[in-house]
């Protein structure tokens, strides 16, 4: 068996995430009027139409791709699996993601600054429902039951977490943070260490390989919460396959309300964050 740790994946999936390959999103934009914004369906550029508006919604990339390929049974949404090539499906998905909340950069557009930009909003004058508060965000960040919460993968000020240390998030543009929370695949990061592993005893593991030796791999097992850093003997492994995309869950758009997302952003930024700043 060969272990591909450290080898960048060369599959069509690698380019799925919007922003990771903005050329792909441009291809999708070209395809969109032919297949999607036809009468009675999704409007021009995903705006208003008879079918659900696509622009400005949160989307899980995996679920989105599934809908494009298989359609939604018992609705007007047809399946495009037979009509579009694999690459065209990826392109349409990339485009739809690019018009979702906190859109990733268009081709040729300037990359949004990772530094916080001052926004002239008088937070005091906004209703509470539009303002995120750090203390509430901390509670949400450190939530550790069920699917919600960031702790376990992310730390503040410590580098030994599964995901990035988020203490630098204070310095980042809240829009970029929101995009990274809702669309983890949008950022062009090295995903080469994300694998699914089947052990000979039948156990299935989704994990990030940290290091590999002659006899074992050491990985963060993400199939459990809190995640576990485990040493897996190679002789116990039946199958090991790379997984495209980010290991971060893609359903935070469904798990949190807008208000809660604002609170989490406020905690990450160490200050109150208001809804208008995200536009």
């Amino acid at each position: 068996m060969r272990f591909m740790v450290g080898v960048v994946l060369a599959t069509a999936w690698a380019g799925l995430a919007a922003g990771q390959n903005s050329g792909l999103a441009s291809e999708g934009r070209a395809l969109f009027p032919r297949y999607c914004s036809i009468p009675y369906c999704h409007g021009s550029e995903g705006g208003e139409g008879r079918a659900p508006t696509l622009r400005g919604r949160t989307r899980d990339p995996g679920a989105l791709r599934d809908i494009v390929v298989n359609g939604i049974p018992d609705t007007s949404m047809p399946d495009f699996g037979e009509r579009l090539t694999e690459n065209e499906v990826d392109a349409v998905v990339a485009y739809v993601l690019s018009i979702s909340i906190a859109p990733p950069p268009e081709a040729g557009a300037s990359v949004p600054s990772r530094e916080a930009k001052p926004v002239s909003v008088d937070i005091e004058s906004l209703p509470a429902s539009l303002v995120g508060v750090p203390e509430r965000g901390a509670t949400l960040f450190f939530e550790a039951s069920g699917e919600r919460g960031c702790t376990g993968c992310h730390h503040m000020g410590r580098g030994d977490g599964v995901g990035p240390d988020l203490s630098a998030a204070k310095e980042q543009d809240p829009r970029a943070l929101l995009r990274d929370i809702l669309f983890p695949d949008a950022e062009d990061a090295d995903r080469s260490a994300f694998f699914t592993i089947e052990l000979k005893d039948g156990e299935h593991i989704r994990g990030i390989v940290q290091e590999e030796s002659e006899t074992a791999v050491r990985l963060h097992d993400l199939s459990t919460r809190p995640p576990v850093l485990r040493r897996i003997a190679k002789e116990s492994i039946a199958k090991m396959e790379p997984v495209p995309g980010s290991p971060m869950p893609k359903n935070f758009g469904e798990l949190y309300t807008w208000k809660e997302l604002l609170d989490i952003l406020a905690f990450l930024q160490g200050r109150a964050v208001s809804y208008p700043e995200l536009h």
Partner: protein
Amino acid sequence: MRAKLVTVLSTVVFGVLCGTTAVAQSLDQAESQPENWLTYGGTYNSWRYSPLDQIDRSNVKRMKVAWAFQLGAVDMGFQATPLVADGVVYVIGPKNRVFALDGATGERRWHYFHEIPEGHSVYGNQNRGVALGHGNVYLGTADNYVVALDATTGEVAWKVNVEDSAYFGCNITGAPIVIKDMVIVGSTGGDSAHRGHIVAFDARTGKLRWRFNTIPGPGEPGNETWEGDSWKYGGGAAWMTGSYDPELDLLYWGIGNPAADLYGEARKGENLYTDCIVAIDPDTGEVVWYFQEIPHDLWDYDSAYEAILIDAVLDGRERKLLIHPNKGGYMYVLDRTNGEFLTAWAFSDSINWTTGLDEKGVPQNRREPVLNTETLICPNAAGARSWNQASYHPNTGLLYNVGIEWCSMVIARKQDPKMGQSFLGGEFGRVLPPPGEVISSRLVAHDPITGERKWVRSSKYPLLASILSTGGNLVFYGDPEGKFYALDAETGDELFRFNTGAGHRGSPISYAVDGKQYVATPSGWGSLVSDYFPAIWPEAAGFTAGATLFVFTVDEE
């Protein structure tokens, strides 16, 4: 001489990883392996008793140091219980340094130093012990990880962060315990705005199996014993190690005090399950029964100490008992099948926070801390005994337990909780002697049911180390000045003493390698409670820190 060693029974192996070693075996068999010391309390019943009888009252005076090992980090004292399996000693010292040592020579097999990031040891760098099982050595860490090390190599098998130490204001200083295919551990945090818990991980993979929150959440029975959202910040740390009855299949764990410690106005109610002994179904983490020793505790009287499981005749009936000391100075005797309160006796002579317990064990006429005003409370929050454990000797039938007579001037202060931050709700104040007396301490041989004192051996300084008793009818203990003693278990007469050069804060054990018995004791002063000493005895400022494991044996004549 070798013939006197208790027969080593052929062992039943249930191991999954290294099928031939004690580390891999089911710990249910620990009592049939006197050569080993496999769990924190020696065996699941937490007797801290070794049946080994090679070293006895006739030869203990010839006991000599076989080897010593220095652990190299000394802060907060050397508080651990070493474990032994198949001739290898596994010991953890301050700063989460773990060593595997040859039991006969002290030679190092491997070591593991857990790196603790700055500012993440919220309750200190001390550690009270590791656990063994499934081919692994398990430790809880100062930054709130549980780590499994391969017992043969010391390599990390798995590692998991229970929760963020800095945010939640808790970490792990107690020893984990292996039950079936799980490793189970509690955490500190009882004096923080924090919600306590006991967690069980799959011993092989590190996956979370269950989490028992010591404070019930909304919708769970017991949540109504907390006012408002005080349950979120109510403490209840399970900071010591539980006991287990394999026959009843119940895990017993003592739960610590509620927070804020001294100010209770914002947490009106009984505050379950703080100050309780809980019996937990080890497969699910669910409470089977509980007994609350102190409803709505206002003195920081944890019930976190050991649960000693003995069977005895009480009122003409054979009972399965659980004997449990509380910081407040009472030893509780419960029926461990159902949690029924049977009796209790005081091991402190100066209790003033209550006039006594009623027939159900409920403290009467409570003397409570007063807001912004000094009140003399006896014993103080360090306890009529510290966490260091008692020993039960099945042949003498006696419980060897420490008592300390000390008080302090307590002031309650209003405090609002902030997650993970210190939440004392007042000041523990000056440490004082009981009125008209001096601060004193003693080791006592008690009848475990009635508390009757068979013999008493006094100590100038409060004893802060655990007791060991052995089949050689000996009792071993160390004192704050560094002396290590062997006493006659029946009379209390001193038979041996050795100066280890630093005060005792840990727990002695006994084991055997190749048919030869050894007695091991940690030596190394330090901890929050020992920091009380210099204000009372100025010379105690010179009680130096250390972290040395001394191992004694008796050579053939």
